[in-house]
């Protein structure tokens, strides 16, 4: 932090942090498009899961697991005749990406251990990316607000899908499986503000591409987070 008296005062590029309520409201507003996506994805999860596990289990799963990719993966393993261990392993591998995301927000999470662990539960991809204020700073109130908007959307979408009675026989026919990558791409576009971020993104994409054919689903994404180690080099 350097300030020169001879310079005219410049507007602070990082204005006074807004109140927690204002941050949470901003997060909820910013999460509206992702909440719409969550409704559609939750709907397709309900459609796919109901014949396999029944209405109640599908709804409970969305309520207490609340992780789209992991739920789809675990359900796919069960549908293919795999056991509970294999299904849990598939889901856990996909959710391990929340480990580096949790490390990233850790310095910004306030309160005692229990409170910090509870705030960690708000980690979902979209909220985490939105809560990133740049340069590794995170707004945890925005994270909470954004997730609070998406949770009912995901759960409500699942309930609607479960009781749709096969209204949508094949979510893939509607292209719903392209929603996730398109959504991550739009978040990524906003992150590519400097050359280093672009290099890291390219490297991470290459790692994920190289590992996808030879590792179980979930591993490529976790391994690709190692690309961020480029940050150890002085810029």
């Amino acid at each position: 932090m350097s300030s020169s008296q001879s310079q005219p005062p410049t507007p602070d590029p990082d204005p006074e942090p807004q109140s927690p309520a204002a941050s949470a409201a901003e997060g909820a507003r910013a999460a509206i498009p992702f909440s719409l996506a969550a409704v559609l994805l939750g709907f397709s999860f309900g459609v796919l899961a109901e014949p396999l596990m029944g209405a109640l289990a599908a709804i409970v799963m969305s309520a207490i697991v609340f992780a789209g990719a992991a739920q789809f993966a675990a359900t796919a393993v069960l549908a293919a005749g795999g056991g509970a261990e294999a299904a849990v392993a598939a889901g856990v591998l996909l959710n391990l990406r929340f480990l580096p995301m949790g490390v990233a927000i850790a310095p910004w999470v306030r309160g005692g251990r229990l409170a910090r662990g509870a705030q960690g539960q708000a980690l979902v991809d979209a909220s985490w990316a939105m809560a990133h204020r740049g340069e590794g700073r995170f707004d945890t109130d925005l994270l909470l607000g954004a997730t609070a908007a998406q949770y009912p959307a995901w759960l409500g979408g699942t309930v609607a899908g479960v009781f749709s009675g096969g209204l949508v026989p094949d979510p893939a026919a509607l292209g719903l499986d392209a929603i996730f990558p398109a959504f991550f791409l739009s978040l990524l576009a906003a992150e590519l503000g400097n050359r280093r971020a672009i290099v890291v993104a390219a490297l991470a994409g290459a790692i994920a591409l190289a590992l996808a054919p030879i590792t179980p689903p979930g591993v490529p994404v976790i391994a690709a987070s190692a690309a961020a180690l480029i940050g150890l080099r002085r810029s």
Partner: protein
Amino acid sequence: MIAVWWTIGALALATAAIKAAGPVLLGGRELPAPTASVIALLAPALLAALVVAETFGHDGRLSVDPRAAGLAAAAMALALRAGVVTVIVVAAVATALTRAALL
């Protein structure tokens, strides 16, 4: 059916533990500058990998299928400065149309 409930319970507990780990173990602490610099780059790294995995990943192998057309359409929409909802809808429609055309 028992396997379903075991899966749901175990996955819920494991996910909660994974999400809590960082904030509980490292929470509220100022991180050294090099670590903070790595953390700032986790977002582009994880997002790029998610794009690749969700577009070309298919049960542990690579496949180029209609999702790739959807992603290309999404990229074009982004280049035209479309909002997130538009980008998502464009991707879904492009994927659905490509899939229908290939049937």
